[in-house]
Structure formats: structure tokens, C-alpha cells
């Protein structure tokens, strides 16, 4: 327990320079190369004096660049994310978006793991069978597909043509709700985007599980277990799977970044008001405080996910010393 704690502390300490580097990159991109005020003037025609003033205050533009950065960083660390150039404070606006994004991503992740692991095991156990060929073919198409394009296709088929499901937004704007109440309405709106996200991440999980299972089933310890009369199901699920699953955990943990940041196009096609969609909106409006906040929040969540992954990994794999 003590070793786990010290490991956690070390990982968190290591995450700090990473966080700072990302913050410098984000800050420099939005700031140093050109005057942020000029960026806004270039992008927002008729930028109001209030917007310019808000931006000057947010970036402390009267200071030299490195001082600006420290002012900005100290504001950020103290939770002062500034004000949107349009309405409201950044913190108030961004928090609900995180929730809306997770509303899609968490069910999709759980579903794709729940389906992907058994299918991957099946595929590895029956290598080159018809079922395996079907699975691997579907999976390689899945990893070659732009997520949002699959979304558009499903919108055309199920929302516009068959009219079974709504195409846009997270909730009906006003009653009548689909299915009579707000919960079924939310489910109906979330259904298609979750299906798309599940399919695409399912494809990569199946490929990963299959490859690792094939590798594990070829190892000597599997042969030894079989030779000593361990039942095949126990060989598969205890001996092979236990070793095949750790890389899967690593990859899923590392993909948390794409999970949060990778959805802008999909969220845009479904007008789903999550972090990705709002990031695109804010970028189009050059709402710099919001853009920076979203980038940094995603970075922080990725860092947390990475630390979590490493801890789980260390727990599952006794060879990793804490």
C-alpha cells in the first residue's frame, strides 16, 4: 500500500512538467507568434471593444510574453479560466460540456470492451476460420473509417430516411419528448452516436485482443498448462487471457486522449454539445479563453487517465515494480 502511494506521488510529480510543457505549447500557439488581439481582429469582424478588453485582461497583453504566461498560468491553476469573449465565464460553460461528452464516451467504451474482448478471444481461438475472417475483415474496415462519416451515413439512413431516430442534439428542444419522457428522449438522441463510437473503438480493441491472444496462446506456459491437463477453457481464460489483456488496458488508457479530443467531428455531425463540438464552435468564433480551457482540460484528463492506467497495469502485472 505504501509503495502504491509513493508510486502515485512519483507519477503525479512526473506529470507536472508534462502539463507545463503542454500549457506552454498551447499558450504560445494562441499567443506569442501573433498578438492575440490581432488574431481576434483578423477572425472576428467587428470585434467589440468589450471583447478586445476582455482578451487584453485575460492575456495581460501589456506585459512581455513570458510574464503573460506566468500570469495566465497562475490564473489557470487557481481555477480562474477567464470569461468567454461572448457571454458567461469559461468555467460555467465548460463543465456541462465535459459531462455531455462523457455521456457518449463512457457507454461506448464499456460496450466496446464488453463486446470486443470476447470477440477478440473467439477470433484468436478460431484463427483463419470463417468467423475469424469475418471479424478481422470488419475490424480493419472499422479502423480505416472516419468516425464522423459513419455517423453521417447512419443519420441519412435512420434519421432522415427511415425517421426512426433524431439526428441532431442531445435532447429535444421542447416537449413532446420522444417516448413520452425525458429519459427515453435522451436515450434516443444518444443512440446513434454511441453506436458509431462503439463500432469504431470496437474495431481496434478486437484487433488488439486478437493479436495479443494469438501471441499468448503460442507461449510455452500455455503449452505447459495444456500438457499438464489443465482444461482448455481454463488455459484460455486464466493463463492466456491474463497475459493478453494487459497491453489492451494500456492502449485503452492511452486512447483516452483521442476519446475526449477525437470526437470533435462526430459531435459536430450530431450537433452533440460536448467538448469536441464546442471546441470547434469556439475555434470558429476565435473564443480563445474557451479554446485554451478545453485544450488544457483534455490534457489534464489524459494525464489522469495515464496515471490510472499505469496503476492498474502495475497491479495486474507483478513484473512491474511500483
Amino acid at each position, binding site marked *: 500500500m505504501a509503495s502504491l502511494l509513493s508510486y502515485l506521488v512519483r507519477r503525479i510529480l512526473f506529470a507536472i*512538467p508534462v502539463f507545463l510543457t503542454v500549457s506552454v505549447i498551447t499558450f504560445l500557439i494562441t499567443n506569442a507568434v501573433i498578438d492575440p488581439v490581432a488574431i481576434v481582429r483578423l477572425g472576428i469582424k467587428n470585434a467589440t471593444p468589450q471583447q478586445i478588453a476582455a482578451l487584453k485582461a485575460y492575456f495581460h497583453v501589456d506585459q512581455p510574453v513570458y510574464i503573460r504566461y506566468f500570469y495566465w498560468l497562475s490564473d489557470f491553476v487557481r481555477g480562474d479560466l477567464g470569461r468567454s469573449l461572448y457571454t458567461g465565464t469559461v468555467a460555467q460553460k465548460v463543465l456541462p460540456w465535459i459531462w455531455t461528452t462523457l455521456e457518449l464516451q463512457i457507454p461506448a467504451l464499456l460496450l466496446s470492451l464488453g463486446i470486443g474482448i470476447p470477440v477478440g478471444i473467439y477470433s484468436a481461438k478460431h484463427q483463419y476460420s470463417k468467423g475469424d475472417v469475418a471479424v478481422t475483415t470488419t475490424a480493419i474496415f472499422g479502423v*480505416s473509417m472516419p468516425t464522423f462519416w459513419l455517423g453521417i451515413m447512419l443519420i441519412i439512413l435512420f434519421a432522415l430516411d427511415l425517421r426512426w431516430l433524431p439526428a441532431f442534439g442531445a435532447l429535444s428542444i421542447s416537449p413532446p419528448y420522444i417516448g413520452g419522457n425525458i429519459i427515453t428522449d435522451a436515450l434516443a438522441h444518444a443512440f446513434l452516436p454511441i453506436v458509431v463510437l462503439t463500432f469504431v473503438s470496437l474495431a481496434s480493441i478486437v484487433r488488439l485482443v486478437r493479436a495479443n491472444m494469438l501471441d499468448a496462446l503460442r507461449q510455452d506456459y500455455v503449452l505447459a498448462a495444456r500438457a499438464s491437463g489443465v482444461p482448455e477453457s481454463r488455459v484460455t481464460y486464466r493463463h492466456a487471457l491474463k497475459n493478453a489483456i494487459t497491453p489492451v488496458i494500456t492502449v485503452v488508457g492511452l486512447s483516452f486522449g483521442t476519446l475526449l*479530443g477525437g470526437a470533435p*467531428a462526430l459531435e459536430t455531425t450530431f450537433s452533440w454539445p460536448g467538448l469536441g463540438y464546442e471546441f470547434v464552435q469556439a475555434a*470558429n468564433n476565435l473564443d480563445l479563453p474557451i479554446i485554451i480551457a478545453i485544450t488544457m482540460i483534455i490534457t489534464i484528463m*489524459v494525464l489522469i487517465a495515464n496515471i490510472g492506467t499505469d496503476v492498474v497495469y502495475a497491479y495486474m502485472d507483478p513484473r512491474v515494480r511500483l
Partner: protein
Amino acid sequence: MSQGAKPVRRRAAGQWAVAWRRFRKNKSGLAGVAIVGAFLILALYGIFAAPYPARSFACLYQGCTNLPPFVNWAHPLGTEPSGIDVWSEIAHGASGDLYVGVTATLISVIIGIVVGAIAGYRGGAAGALLLGLTQVFFVIPILVVILLFAKIFLFLVAAGLGLNLIVFALAIFGWPVIAFIARGEILRIRELEFVQASQALGASNTRILFRHIVPNMLSPIIVIASLAIAGNILTEVVISFLGFGDPSASTWGLLLDDGFQYVRSSWWVSFFPGIAVVLCVLGFNLLGDGLSDALNPRLRE
């Protein structure tokens, strides 16, 4: 030597010949080569022989807007309500997307090999710095930062940089992975006997590095590069789809953006370019998988 029987000089099969022999038997790898080849031809067709120029609204003036596919053979895949011919634009998009995917990957491979080679061979502070840097790049939400980059520097696109801005952005965020792999390979290879032998013979560091080590670490990098082209094309499609790319250059993402605007009236404008993206990315993925099987015999039974 008797008459007629020419002296047969058989060179010992090199690693590349062995790999090719293995690759030749791999059906999905060959399918990948065929698909990639077909898209190269499509790109050339787009540049030299497409019926309409890039982003041309010519059909508007010919009165054939919003045509469904397979109706009028002058426009096999239909036209947009705005008058863009879908087939012609897919061909132009092929050259745009292949250009972005291949160039960005090439640049990141070159930077990655040089940085990874120096860090791996020299070790020390450079190695530590590189390791730290790759850690940062693994954590950066790359797509978001690239979108941000593309948006802030959008004025450079109009100033003549065009698609090169995206190439540049993809290369900046693509090289660390290559460098990381290159460094690992070098750490492995520099301990091998032939390297120590040439050290003993007094070869210079540069010669050892670029004559002996780099050629031997190419095979994992070729595999990664093929998969990276696929990934870069997918990212490019997302960037242009969201309107962060070059609005005057033809890419599949931009065409899909048109398609999404006309989603209620004209399904074909988003269907066909999407198929092109899937097939092209599939081609590079199959190629990468095939190369991986052929170049890493360890993974084979």
C-alpha cells in the same frame, strides 16, 4: 565451363529479398499494394485528366446540378447542388490527400530518424530530453492542438501555404513516435556484433550510425510509416471536414463537408468520398500489416 551453361551468380538473398518473398505470399498485403496503386493512378488522373478542374462549379452553368449518381454518365457519381462534379472532385481529392498523407509522413520519418538516432547513439542528456519530449507528445490531445494550430495560422493558407500548413502540423506532431521507435532500435542494434566489429576497425561514429545502424532499423519504421500515412489521411479528412483546412484545395474532407451541408437532399455527395477515404486508408493499413508480417519474421509461426 561448358558451352551454354552461363555461370550463374547467385547473390545471397538479402533481407529485403527475403522480405519480398514473404510479402508476395500475403494476400491482404498484396491487396493493400493494389489499392494504394489504384489511388496513385486516381491521383494522377485527378491532376492530368479529370473532366473538371478542382473546386469547379462548372455544372452550375450547364444546368446539371444535384444530379443523382449513375443517371448521367457525364457525371457518374452525381453532382452537388452547388454544381461540383463528385467523381472529378474525388479524383482531385485523391491527389490532395495522398500529398498530405505521404509528405507529412516523410517529413516526420526523416526528423524522427535523425533525432532518434542522435538520442539513441549518444544517449546522455539528448536521450533523456527526447524521452521526456515523447512523453509530452503522447499526452498532448494532438487532434485538438492541430485544429487549434490550423485555425490560428489559417491566414498563412491564404498567403500561399495552402495544404502545406496541414502537412507541417501533422509532421510536427508525427515525428516523436518515429523518434521513439528509432531510439529503441538503435539501443538494440548498437550492441550487436557487427557494430562492435566496425568500431574495432576504427570506423567513425557518423559512418557507423548511417552506414550500419540506420539501414538495419528501417524495417519497423517502414511499417509504422505505412500505418502513419493512413492515420495522417484520416486526420486530414477530419481537419478539412471541420473547415480548418484550405478552402480552395480539393480534399476528401472538404467534399464530405459539402456532403454534410446537403445531407438532406443529396446523400451521394457524402457517400462516395467517404468510400474513397475508407478504401484508401484500408489500402495503407493492409500494406502496413503485410509489411509488418514480412519484415518481422519473429511474429510468424
